[in-house]
């Protein structure tokens, strides 16, 4: 299991475009991916879950990845979030 904390830094937060990128990336892996914000946990492969997590800019979230390809999955997710979803 891999666990990592992030601060959402792109301007619009985990909005539709960013959420779509995240889910598309997550779905390429077999591992289970969970996002947690303030004790609310959602499935990282569900766009609705991520949108409902309502994480605007500045939100702290943590990501947990569990499964055979967890290392690679965490790497890709980290890049996406830290890169601000290529927004700027």
């Amino acid at each position, binding site marked *: 299991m891999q666990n990592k904390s992030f601060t959402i830094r792109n301007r619009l937060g985990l909005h539709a475009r960013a959420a779509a990128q995240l889910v598309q990336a997550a779905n390429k892996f077999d591992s289970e991916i969970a996002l947690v914000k303030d004790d609310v946990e959602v499935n990282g492969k569900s766009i609705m879950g991520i*949108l409902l997590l309502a994480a605007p800019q500045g939100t702290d979230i943590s990501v947990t990845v569990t499964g055979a390809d967890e290392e690679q999955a965490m790497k890709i997710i980290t890049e996406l979030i830290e890169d601000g979803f290529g927004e700027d």
Partner: protein
Amino acid sequence: MGKINVATDTYLVGMGVSPGIAIGKVNLIDQRPLVDQSLINGSEVDAEISRFQQAIDQAREQLQKIKKTVSKQPHLREHLYILDTHLLILEDEMLVEGTKKEIRALVNVEGALTRVLEKLRALFDSIDDEYLRERRSDVDAVGDRLLRILMGVSERNIDKIGSSSIVVAHDLSPAETIQMDRSHVLGFITGKGGRTSHTAILARSLDIPAVVGLESITAMVVDGMTAIVDGFSGVVILKPSEKTLQEYLIHKQSYDCLEQDLEQYRDLPSITKDQVHIPLRGNLEISSDVIQIKKHAAEGIGLYRTEFLYLGRSAPPDEEEQFQSYCEILKQAEGDPVTIRTLDIGGDKFVPELNLDDEANPAMGLRAIRFSLHEEQLFKIQLRAILRASSCGRVRILFPMISGVAEIRACKKMLGDIQAQLDKEGISYDPDLAIGIMIETPSAVMIAPLLAKEVDFFSVGTNDLIQYFLAVDRGNEHVAYLYDPLHPAILRALKMTCDAANEAGIEVCICGEMAGEPLYALVLVGLGFHELSMNPACVPRVKRVLRQVSKQDGATLVKQLLLLSTSKEVSTIIEAEMRRRLPAIFAQPPIQ
């Protein structure tokens, strides 16, 4: 929903957000279908689930087809993610598994899906962030697509718009707008929306006439009804009579013909016959409008509304982000001046302890400069960003809704403090940054000579000025008829403002809708305005008029107008005068 009976020649006035005239047949983007909810037997569960699965497959095919079409249009590529979002929602476990679970609880698939959608809607409604909350519309759009497939109702007719259509809808989502075949769309009318709504922005960038904010429009029209959209004045005419139609057709023809002739003015300077240079600048509603400013060769930006930086987010933009946004626009202005107006709305959503929702009269409440002076911290961030940006181009700063001298002094004091701070930090800015105020309250007009001593320029916002002067809420359909730019009181107010500025030797600019109306160009120059700032698409038309008149003639005309008692008399004289001087342009009497 009941239909309102519409008589021949029904005139409606909304907000014209994209100029031009369109005459066509209404294509009503209809409301969502009524769902047939019923209970099922246990033996029917499997069949319902498989119906659901088939509907998902079909919806996926539809979306992929749309995506393919959209991706062929380079200017829409950046919107493709909306369709990706829809595809992901379609496969989402909350939607899919949730619906299957309801079906197993013995509800038919339509009923099951509707229940799930309602639950999701409630979840989205509880999100604090306005922008994220609005994503609900994407879930609704997918739900709607599935329901239509299940019920055998044809798709919301967005991708099947007939040719020569005037698209009418209560609201159009970005997803819907990009799916339209725009070679068929002549004009837009929506019930909701403002200048920065998606429909408005898209219509402007495509040069399609649009009128928004006509609240009950969808209840008034049916498919195939003839409609005229005048994106200049915001007028919509439903079921025009043969006479009106003929008038507008001629109007449109001469307009189209003049339109072709306009191109030659693009690169000519904006100079009157008596050699007075009147810069014509563009109003910037949202950053993408800068393309329009270049396209129509406006001389810089006379009004940069910074509100859009603050909308659709839960935290205000920080100094660095604002600085970057301002510099980006300055870079694109390529040395032309850019007038940046500080926040002109109430920003209470960024100040949790301040609840302005129940202000009885928000137009006279804590907004614009009052809000900024009340929330010093927020204001300082914006001032710092603007000052810093002044080192990347020609910035002028503009304070909105000033009603007295004390307010502008307070603003100047804050600016001075920040300048001192920047000096200390060794950060560069333009020390000669021009400072101006909006003249839009009656008190500012009355004390214009006192205000003129405090600032480098005035900018008259006619839309608000007219509302405050005539005590008319333009959005109130019962009194909107009183909203009148040619009211003798307004002419006097403009004259007083210009006189005060000219006596003090400061610049005076006009940046409301009046500035973009070619018919008023001569009057405005005659009043003494030095520059006009407008929707960039209006620049070539106003320039064509200005190059054929003289400031002296304008001053003579204004003298004559100030002797008249009613706006009817004023408009009659202006129209006759402009027709006499420029028959090719004003041959057709504007249709009232």
